[in-house]
């Protein structure tokens, strides 16, 4: 199966002089939590960080082209909070809500979940996760936070 960002990943393998990315990833059926914006249809919700040209540092890494998830809801909330404690305006980049969905074996390949329950998914071509994810809750607690555009 071809990956969604196959062209970029092929270039990356050639640049890094490696056989390719994600050799230790595998197809999994797994429950997943992801940070999103308030509207699940928001186009920013399911794009990898490396596709943003400003993130030049990530375009050269395999993980930059994967999507980030958590297996456990409480761990996902905890990680989001840690990041906002570090950069209070970061919600404008990573999302304001938590969404839940199921990743299927036909969606792509996943990394093994870490201790923090975080794992990556590299999507196969033509996969659209929006249809299978629904927003659970808003993560913003403080009403004084600046409104999103």
């Amino acid at each position, binding site marked *: 199966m071809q990956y969604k960002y196959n062209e970029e990943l092929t270039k990356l393998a050639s640049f890094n002089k490696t056989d390719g990315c994600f050799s230790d990833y595998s197809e999994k059926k797994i429950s997943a939590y992801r940070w999103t914006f308030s509207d699940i249809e928001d186009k920013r919700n399911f794009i990898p960080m490396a596709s943003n040209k400003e993130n*030049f*540092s*990530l375009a*050269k890494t395999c993980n930059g082209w994967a999507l980030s998830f958590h297996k456990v809801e409480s761990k996902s909330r905890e*990680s989001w909070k840690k990041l906002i*404690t*570090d*950069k209070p305006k*970061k919600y404008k980049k990573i999302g304001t809500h938590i969404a839940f969905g199921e990743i299927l074996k036909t969606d792509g390949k996943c990394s093994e979940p870490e201790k923090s329950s*975080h794992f990556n998914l590299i999507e196969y071509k033509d996969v659209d996760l929006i249809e299978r994810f629904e927003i659970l809750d808003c993560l913003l607690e403080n009403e004084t936070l600046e409104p999103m555009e």
Partner: protein
Amino acid sequence: MSNNIKSPFGEIQYLGNLLSKAYPTTLLFYDQNKIPVVVEWIDVDDNGNDIYYIFKTLKSNLENYLRGNISHLEYINLAEKKEYYKFHNSIFNTDFKKLNHKKLDKNSLPNKSSFFHEDLSDDYKSIADFFGIKFISQEDKDNYFNKLKEYSKNSKAGLFRVHLNEGNNIGHGTADTKVLGELLMNFENLYHETALDVIKGHERKAKINNLPENVSITKMSSTEVYLQEAASFSIYLKSKTDSNSNSKTYSFFSDEIFDKINILVSNASDKKNLESIKSSYSPTVFDSLKNFSEIIYENKIIIDLDYYNTNSNYRFSQVIKPYEANNIYENIISSSHETETNLYFIGNFIMLNTKTGYFSFLSVEKIEISGYVSNQIKESMISFNFKNLYKVTISQNSISKLNNNKFKLENTLESCILEN
């Protein structure tokens, strides 16, 4: 990335992302003299442009940040010459505007409790390698633990090692007497109070555990220095009574005390975890831990706590970094115990304020109680008077700080019925 990038600090090269896996917000570069240059993502402006700050810093500051000695905010504040530049979107071909430290957007900077966490970083190891920052290997840790095992075997007792790994005025085999003195005094208090919890129970009402052969509670709840060694600075402590006993059960008392301290310290840096264990310790234990963690944080000490008992093979290891000590301190002072009970009285009102909802009630048994009327019955308060006899239900909420026996009572009048 080998391309040189023009910056206010001369040509720089990209090294890696310090934070975070979720979105790169702290990027590390180096200049021609291999001095760290940091780029911090700060915010997005009204036009959707990303705002970044760039500054130069000392390697020692980076090292202190990575080791957890200073917070992210302190790290930013320690920029060389307090010189910062602001730019938008891309570091390539961009305009850099010089900023005074006072002009930094304080609302977008890290919270003072934000410290480096390796779980959030992809590249910290390669960054540390580049700048020659060494972390202790697992092999070194294992060897150091084996030393403790050896000493425990020689002393035939459980030994607790307090290792002052790094910190203000801590060197190889030396430690500032004031810092060491305060740290040990506060640890001894923590041990003593935890031991009393083990011996008498956390409510300290009755003697729960039977003490063996004529051992005094004072001795049982005290430690003594077994030895000191120069490895940064290490002190080996043991229960004051262990060496005098031939009883196996007896030596396990110190296992129980140190285990209780270990559970407490492991959980107290997380507010949720602290909630789950707060009823198992007395206020004086929390107060001792608060003071102990304050010393660690104030002196920016990384402290390794290891325990091993050759008789039981019981062991544990843990590290308290300054930021964890700060979390422990903040969590203790911001937590409380709350208990709610319902009280039932028959009597008269002696004061009523319909504007504020405040009331005072005198029961027929001459018990006076004051508080506020609940929102549910506030509207009917206007019908209450001083002549009639009422049957009231008052919910009493008792709130006490975790580290203090003093409590505050909050009374709420939940129901009020005319008594015939």
